[in-house]
């Protein structure tokens, strides 16, 4: 502190300004990176949502709000938005519940724990696209492994039938895609919660044992509250990831039949083939939607309390 004040006494104004700007030297590159890589595309995206762009990419002129108007009148939009919310809630919810259990399991000492923990990373380490493709082939109506098993069990009556074509009917396709999405989200979530579990001091558990608390009581009134920051972080990141999830849906159904398994992200991509401006409008709405969803979640979860802690 004293050094700083000496500095300011001895030096003239420009020098003082230069000193004040000195931190910029260190954080400048990071800020520049954020501006170029994060903010610029956002600005360009929002700008192009107000332009009239021909399907071969030439800008024909301004469009005002007409891209948003067309998007609003898109008959598929309502279903797409509803499906997106369902997709996020189910995938994140189920992932979280399963991860809480898994984290508990992996927090125990048992032989082979290290190997088991490593295996848990695998779905995370594998490319999501690859995982989605494997599931798609496993669900092939004529020769998919899942169908062969279900056929042998007598659940699927005939290979190659409509019943065996899981990805062809919107409801079942969503079901299977959710399974894949949960499968690839588990590792990160489990590890985030596992890290949280390991910060819980063992004295508290000892004290509760001395007081005669049951396992369930301990879990509810000690583990879960202590895990709250970890759950918050894991949920927020998952919500954003799952909301923007593209490869699973794209590789398994391309959002079809029609748009009946599309979420806002894949719908935006399909629109881009011919309606670039409208697609940009969808992106802008998507961006806004994810921000709103996250803000609402943080508010409900009492984000401020967590930070103050």
């Amino acid at each position, binding site marked *: 502190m004293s050094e700083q004040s000496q500095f300011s006494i001895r030096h003239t104004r420009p020098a003082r300004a230069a000193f004040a700007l000195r931190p910029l030297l260190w954080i400048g590159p990071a800020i520049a990176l954020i501006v170029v890589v994060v903010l610029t595309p956002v600005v360009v995206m929002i700008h192009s949502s107000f332009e009239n762009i021909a399907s071969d990419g030439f800008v024909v002129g301004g469009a005002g709000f007409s891209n948003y108007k067309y998007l609003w009148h898109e008959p598929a939009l309502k279903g797409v938005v509803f499906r997106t919310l369902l997709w996020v809630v189910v995938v994140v919810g189920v992932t979280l519940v399963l991860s809480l259990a898994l984290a508990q399991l992996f927090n125990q000492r048992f032989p082979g724990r290290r190997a088991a923990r490593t295996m848990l990373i695998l779905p995370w380490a594998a490319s999501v696209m690859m995982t989605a493709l494997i599931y798609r082939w496993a669900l092939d109506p004529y020769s998919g492994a899942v169908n062969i098993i279900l056929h042998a069990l007598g659940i699927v009556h005939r290979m190659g039938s409509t019943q065996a*074509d899981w990805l062809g009917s919107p409801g079942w396709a969503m079901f299977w895609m959710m399974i894949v999405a949960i499968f690839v989200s588990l590792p990160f979530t489990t590890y985030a919660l596992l890290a949280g579990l390991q910060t819980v001091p063992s004295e508290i558990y000892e004290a509760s044992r001395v007081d005669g608390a049951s396992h369930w009581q301990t879990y509810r009134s000690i583990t879960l509250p202590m895990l709250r920051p970890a759950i918050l972080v894991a949920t927020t990141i998952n919500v954003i990831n799952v909301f923007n999830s593209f490869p699973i849906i794209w590789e398994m159904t391309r959002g079809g039949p029609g748009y009946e398994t599309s979420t806002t992200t894949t719908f935006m991509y399909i629109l881009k083939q011919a309606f670039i401006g409208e697609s940009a409008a969808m992106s802008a709405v998507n961006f806004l939607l994810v921000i709103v969803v996250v803000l609402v979640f943080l508010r409900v979860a009492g984000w401020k309390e967590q930070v103050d802690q």
Partner: protein
Amino acid sequence: MRKRQFGARLAVVAAASAAVAVAAAGTSSASTVKAHAASSDVTLKLVVADYGTGPSNTSLKYWNSMAAAFHKQNPSISVKVTDIPWTNFDSEVQTMIQNKNYPDITEGDYFSAYAQQGLLYSAKQVLSDSANLLPAFKNQGSYKGTQYGLPWTTSSRTLFYNKKLFAKAGIKSAPTTWAAIEADAAKITKLGKIGFGLPLGPEEAQAESLLWFLGDGGGYMNTAGNKWTISSTADVTAFNFLKGMVAAGDTEPDPGTQDRTPLWEKFAAGDVGMINGSPALIPIIQAGKVLSSSQWASVPIAGKNGPLKSTLGVCDNVAAFKPNGHEAQIKAFLNFAYQNKYQLQFDREYDLLPATVSAANALKSDPTFGSFIKALPYSVQYPINTAWAQVKTDIQNTIGTAVTGTPSAVLGQLQSQAQRLGS
């Protein structure tokens, strides 16, 4: 200032990719081009799409050998060939035009926008016998009554059927009506195979749908080409029929999610009784090595009450660009390239059909291509409308839901979207 920097960077990138393109094409360096220019020689820049499946049959080979033969006859004109994979063709040509790095000739997709901007020579200016170009394809390459897109290679659709499965199911002859298709498909389905392959997924739903519309005298637009007719009674009837077939299980499950290529491969594997196809299906059948040439055949597509008199025909085009001012040289080259010899060589290499009357006549009695050739003069094209590209995308994405949903509602939705985009 910022903008200029960006521009400069773009130019560097473009130059670098151009260098790569030149290196890849394995042609002469910039200095030889200069030498040509000094002796008033001309180098034509020919940009072509690649129809090959790999290095062994790349289109570069075909064009380079033709260019060499041409150069021998016309020593003052050299032809520099750049070939581009189909997936990048549109965007790379667009980039060349935007950067004012004009080709002299392109072969592949044709853009009516360039004719509109006055960048193209007309067919008459660059081909002596332009009447030899198949007249059926004249309209799709025309702008305000003048032909700018010269058809180079074409294909038409026919109904392929598996003779082996037909014999097994006790079917005597190929179907010519919808009723026969339905009956035959049901018999083949009983054998545990797919009766009729119906690809209504995004890959090419607009083609499959049109073939059924035509069977009932329908289509995407009226004959005058000024009104969309996607939700016409004829079109809805066609999809009601298809819906019945799908519900009866006579097609593959959920046709709205099935793309053309995988189904063609299933036909080649002997798992499909009937499917609408183009000559491009033939190499897939041959590569499959399951069906010998006597075990399948192709016939005119079945319609509601009889075989189609006109089927869907598509073509790729040659376009000649004005900005470099090489009219005479382009004409010399195109006159050379459009000889029967080169037309037929190209079509044999890639199992496609010729685009000139004389070459088509030469192939009329060909056992493999004869039926396609006979269909060519009557072929129907997609609408010639500026909104078609967007309408097509809509059709590809949603028309398949008509066979599981309500045909009139799905087609009605497409109709109103098309009307919004432009009649």
